[in-house]
């Protein structure tokens, strides 16, 4: 199947690290000892009209802001006399400038706005009858994609995927289909999830997380079940045309549900790579979703000592935590590694030196049920 390249031309990432400014690539690493990682909030007022922002819950603000940062990031540097619309929200020029020509807005979110859902459940439990509609509207999963569309006045294709650790990958798959069909030349694709105290408490009961606070940089030293929870909002402006702002191209995506015993992951990955004309030794760096959960991290060890023993191995969940759309952070990381041709020390898992970074594979798995692969190429 002929791949139509999907270039990543702009990225906006709000995460527990200093990532909101796309001109910087992990200038420093934030260390936390905590129950769950929370994103560093940028100044939302600089991106969203303060009046509108007041009615928005945090997740919505994270989504809209990351989307705007991605669009701004994808705007080529002005070339002598070009007019670059400012990012001041609400201005017609902005809406025209940034949203013009955007063919699709697709979001992946595993849990949507937990804050709003909890608000409603809390009030219902307390027996309240008539409620303010705002939390209900904002609790619907597709509110993020829709609010971005309203701000950008984008009437084109719009969708939302909500399947756990496949949510962001499904959005990417949809985007690749759009480019292949010729239905889109540009698309804004996002992966966003938040964590709240209550939700952590509840899901801790279900055995997802460590039982107490942990230090993120020493995540792998605990050797206990459970991961460190996190959150983030990553939006990517993708296009069928390369520009001066291009980071890399996304070649392919694959999701694997409950892999068969008879078909081990290294074979699935080898097949995925060969479908893309590559062999495992042509993967220069592999980004792995180690999250500190001793019950499942061994799945990465297997690959690291097997087909990827010669590759530079990278990990990221000590920086962003575990959440359904964490591969958004991984994609940001891979794209920046390819753009800058450098792997920051903070994310190195082993210490091989790849002299030229051309192809990167992201591999993530969630409790050995939802496995996903992303293939990136430098361009």
């Amino acid at each position, binding site marked *: 199947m002929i791949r139509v390249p999907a270039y990543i031309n702009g990225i906006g990432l709000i995460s527990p690290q200093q990532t909101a400014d796309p001109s910087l690539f992990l200038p420093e690493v934030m260390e936390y000892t905590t129950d769950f990682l929370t994103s560093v909030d940028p100044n939302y007022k600089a991106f969203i009209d303060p009046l509108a922002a007041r009615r928005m819950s945090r997740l919505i603000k994270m989504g809209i802001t990351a989307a705007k940062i991605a669009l701004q990031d994808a705007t080529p540097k002005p070339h002598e006399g070009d007019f670059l619309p400012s990012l001041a929200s609400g201005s017609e020029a902005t809406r025209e400038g940034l949203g013009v020509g955007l063919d699709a807005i697709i979001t992946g979110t595993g849990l949507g706005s937990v804050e709003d859902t909890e608000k409603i459940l809390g009030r219902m439990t307390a027996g309240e009858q008539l409620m303010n509609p705002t939390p209900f509207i904002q609790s*619907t999963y597709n509110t993020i994609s829709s609010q971005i569309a309203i701000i950008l006045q984008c009437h084109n294709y719009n*969708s939302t995927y*909500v399947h*756990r650790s496949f949510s962001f990958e499904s959005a990417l798959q949809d985007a690749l289909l759009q480019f292949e069909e010729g239905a889109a030349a540009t698309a804004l694709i996002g992966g966003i999830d938040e964590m709240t105290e209550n939700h952590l408490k509840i899901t801790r*009961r279900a055995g997802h997380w460590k039982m107490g606070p942990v230090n993120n940089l020493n995540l792998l030293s605990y050797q206990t079940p459970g991961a460190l929870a996190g959150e983030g909002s990553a939006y990517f402006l993708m296009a069928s045309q390369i520009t001066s702002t291009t980071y890399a191209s996304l070649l392919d995506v694959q999701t694997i549900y409950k892999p068969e015993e008879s078909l081990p992951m290294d074979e699935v990955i080898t097949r995925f790579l060969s479908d893309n004309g590559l062999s495992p030794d042509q993967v220069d760096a592999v980004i792995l979703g180690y999250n500190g959960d001793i019950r499942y991290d061994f799945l990465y060890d297997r690959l690291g000592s097997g087909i990827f023993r010669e590759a530079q191995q990278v990990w990221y969940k000590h920086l962003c935590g575990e959440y359904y759309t964490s591969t958004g952070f991984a994609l940001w990381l891979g794209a920046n590694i390819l753009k800058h041709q450098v792997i920051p020390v903070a994310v190195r898992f082993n210490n091989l030196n790849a002299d030229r970074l051309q192809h990167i594979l992201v591999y993530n798995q969630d409790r050995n049920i939802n496995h996903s692969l992303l293939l990136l190429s430098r361009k």
Partner: protein
Amino acid sequence: MARRVVVTGIGILSSIGRNLPETLESVLRSRSGIGKLRYLNSPHQNEFPFAEVPFPNTALTELAQLSDSEGYSRNALLGLIAATEALQHARLHELPPLRTGLLSATTVGGMDTCERYYNDFLTNDSKNIYIDVYDCADSTEKIADHLSIRDYITTLSTACSSAANAILLGARLIRSGRLDRAVAGGTEALTSFHINGFNSLKILDKVPCRPFDVNRNGITLGEGAAYLILETEEAAHAGDRPIFAELSGFGNACEAFHQTASAPDGKGAYLAMERALKLNGTKPSEIDYINAHGTGTDNNDLAEGAAIERLFGEKIPLVSSTKPFTGHMTSAAGSAEAVLSILCLIHRMVLPNLNLETPMPELKFKPVTELIRDVDVNLVMSNSFGFGGNDTSLIFKKYNR
């Protein structure tokens, strides 16, 4: 030429029937499923009518042929029953397996269960097995496991257009050559959560919904699930099975107007319908019948009506909303109404817009109010327009080899 996508199996469970034959029976007899809430405990149960599936979870467990429904939300049970019917209808279990995907849509997910146990989740360990039932993927994965589908699975949520978008995605995955078959549709169970939510928006009608009526006053919430089996023509010809329809057009657009309201000119609706027509070069005049979104809100029916008049000009097809039969099945509406649209193709009929007494003066066209039989229906358009302005239109065509 893009591969043709055809429908080879149908499954539906709603307030008007446990399965496809019962559903057909109900519509032929103009029998609506709207009535009082029987099983869900809601403070609003006496205030508004609902189109609840007339079975408690225990009965649904039997229908789903599960020995043990522990850990199954009502949402998952509804979805499982409808998806199983669709698969069996298409006789897929008799055929050698091809690359098959499951694309399911839901918005409230397992909330029917979790809203009851929310307090327990916060305070004790007694309901821990239900914690992971909450998110949207749970019902999808349970259906996938039960039906042994693993090649591609995902869950969509775009409010009231969700299931239509699942069908749209299934068609695109098949056309791109990534899948040969897709089980596509949606499931939604009634919950206090969203009954409260819709009520806070003040768009629930105190009487059964009256789409396109001048006195309409809002939605009647329903529940259920419906799935289509989509295949390539080639795959469909295996096993000497009937082909029920062709999915000959689809289009999605975003209103980008307001979180919960449509623009008065129905721009998003217009674009979605236009794109669905453009996909295969269908002319507006070729559409015989539109199964409208027609929720019964002031806003939707006006915007959708305006968009239909703008797009179809002089030759407006027959129009009706079937939500007075099934209620508004939210994330399952798109696929349930796709099923009803296909029934019209197969049985040469047009379904009525029940509860319509006084047509809206703003619109030139008058929806069909009586069941029409023995009529040539070749192309049906089915609209699903969701909150957040997510608008999708599907076109089903009578299948000709």
